[in-house]
Structure formats: C-alpha cells, structure tokens
C-alpha cells in the first residue's frame, strides 16, 4: 500500500488467464452496455459475466478490496481502442475533474487482454503524479517526462491506478488494434486500514513513501513526500506518522493552540 501511495499505481503482469484474454477481444468488439453511475459491483455485473469473472480473479479482487475497501460501486466503465496508425496521442491528462481528496480516492482498473508492444500505443503514465492538483488535460502541454512509463506488457496485464495519475493513450504506430478495458471504482466505506496492516511498523513503509521521481523538481519532491505523509496518516488513522520529520517540523508551535 505504501508503494501505491508513492507511485499511484499497482501493476500485475499476466494476471488474467489466457482463455479470458481470448474471450475479451470478441466482447470488446461487440461492446459492453453502460453501467449507471454508482452501481454496486454485484449489481453491475451478473454472476458468470465476463467482467464479474475478471473481477473474481483472486489477485484482482484482493487488490481492489485492499485499495477501495469492501463493497465499492462502479463509477463507470469503458472500452478504449487505439486504432492502427491513428496519427496522434491523447494529451496527458487526469480523468474526470480536479479531485483534491487526500483521505479518499477512486481506483481505475486498466486491463490489457493482448500483448502490448512498444509501437502499439500502450498507455503513457507518470508514476507519482497523482497528488498534483491539475485539472484534466491542462497538463496536455507536457509531452515527455523523465521516468515516465510507456506501457508494454504481456497479455492479461492489469494496472490499478489512483484517480489522479497523469496518463494518456499513446499514438498507435503499429498495424494492430490495441484494446484496454477501464473500470472506475468508488469507495463506499472509509479507506482506513483496508489492507493487511500487519507490517505497518516495517521501516520499508517510510522508505517507499520517501521516494523521489526523476520528473519531479527536487524541491517539489519534498512537498510530494509531505502530501504522501498526510495521505498515509489518513489511511492508517495515525496522525503521528512522518517521514524525515517533514510534517512534524512545520507543525511544531510550542505554547500555541
């Protein structure tokens, strides 16, 4: 979880079995009916349906529950297709609108049923960008950033993203249609200790949160850590937690209320 708070994503390569991946292409070609905003997952997807089977894969079910907690609702879902040689990429953006929540977050599942090679326009994303307060495609001016991820992956890969991550579909320069299925989940319970918290005192937690990213100004990188500390305090209900004394130092006002 600490790594997710720092990176803004959790990636699982080839987690979906081959038979489901093969089935997915036909389903995506035919299209999926829309889901009304805020529908509980169990109501959105019938038992035995493609999406329900996808979400019941233990590693996916466990990761989604750890991140958003029990009984999430489906915000919306969509099939994204990058056509061969379509000519341009999406501008770098965050989905929906600017979202300033620090003590709650939505999770976006991105599922890639086929192998994505370097020329197929795999999703561009910027690790650690999710706590930057920007609105949708106002970041479209940025074409490339050091340390960005230009996704290539084996079939059946799933990435779970914090709602704020900067991303965009890249230009598909190949001869192959590239498919991605996205589902946005909303929490319905407080996102407090929703995962296995038996190792909260492990020093690796602070080490993960203390990460600097190559695209981020060094000075602003310290503020990113401060904001991760605030998020971690909310997720663990521990108002004393800190990394390198960043949050404690600037709140120290002896004798003041």
């Amino acid at each position, binding site marked *: 979880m600490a790594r997710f708070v720092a990176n803004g994503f959790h990636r699982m390569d080839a987690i979906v079995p081959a038979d489901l991946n093969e089935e997915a292409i036909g389903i995506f070609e035919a299209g999926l009916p829309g889901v009304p905003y805020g529908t509980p997952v169990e109501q959105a997807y019938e038992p035995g349906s493609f999406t329900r089977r996808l979400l019941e894969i233990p590693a996916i079910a466990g990761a989604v529950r750890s991140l958003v907690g029990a009984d999430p609702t489906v915000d919306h879902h969509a099939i994204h297709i990058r056509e061969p040689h379509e000519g341009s990429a999406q501008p770098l953006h965050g989905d929906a609108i600017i979202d300033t929540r620090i003590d709650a977050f939505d999770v976006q599942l991105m599922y890639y049923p086929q192998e994505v090679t370097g020329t197929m326009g795999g999703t561009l994303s910027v690790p650690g960008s999710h706590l930057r307060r920007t609105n949708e495609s106002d970041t479209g001016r940025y074409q*490339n950033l050091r340390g960005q991820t230009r996704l290539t992956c084996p079939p059946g890969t799933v990435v779970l993203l914090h709602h704020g991550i900067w991303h965009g579909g890249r230009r598909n320069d190949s001869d192959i249609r590239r498919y991605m299925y996205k589902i946005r989940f909303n929490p319905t319970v407080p996102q407090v200790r929703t995962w296995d918290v038996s190792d909260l005192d492990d020093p690796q937690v602070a080490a993960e949160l203390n990460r600097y990213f190559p695209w981020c100004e060094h000075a602003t990188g310290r503020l990113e850590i401060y904001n991760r500390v605030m998020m971690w305090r909310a997720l663990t209900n521990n108002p004393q937690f800190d990394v390198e004394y960043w949050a404690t130092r600037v709140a120290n006002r002896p004798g003041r209320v």
Partner: protein
Amino acid sequence: MKQQVLVLYLNTSALDSEVLAWAFYDGTGKTNPTTGDSDLPPYDSGTEALRDGWRLFQAAQLIPPYPGHEYQTSFLKHEFWFEKLE
C-alpha cells in the same frame, strides 16, 4: 521563416539545471512529435539547448505559493520556452 518551439522543464529556476520534462512543436512540418514519443530528453540542461542554437524567449516567473496552499503541488514549475527559425 518557420518556427520550431522547444519547451524544457528544469529541476530548479536556474537555466543551467537538469531537464526533467520536455515538449517539441515543429512549424516546419518535418517532424510530427506527440505525447509519449521519447524517454530521453533532447538536452540535459537549458544552457545545453542555448549552445545548440536555441533562442530562449520565455521563462516561468517565480510566484510565491498562495497563503494556505504552501504544501500543494500542481504544474511543473520551471518552464523555459525556446525557438529556432528556419
């Protein structure tokens, strides 16, 4: 004359600091740059771009944080615009 525009995002407000992000727009039509088309920056610093003939025409101002929002992060801060004319 046609304009090529290079935007560099640097690590600090100093023009000789490291390039962290970049964008390129080509008015000559010779290239078709787009989002996510490269993992390597064209230059390591702003001054390296100057040495290669790029003319600086705009630099980001240093704006203090809004009171009460000192710890919030948003856009990349140190944006420098360069041009070449062909």
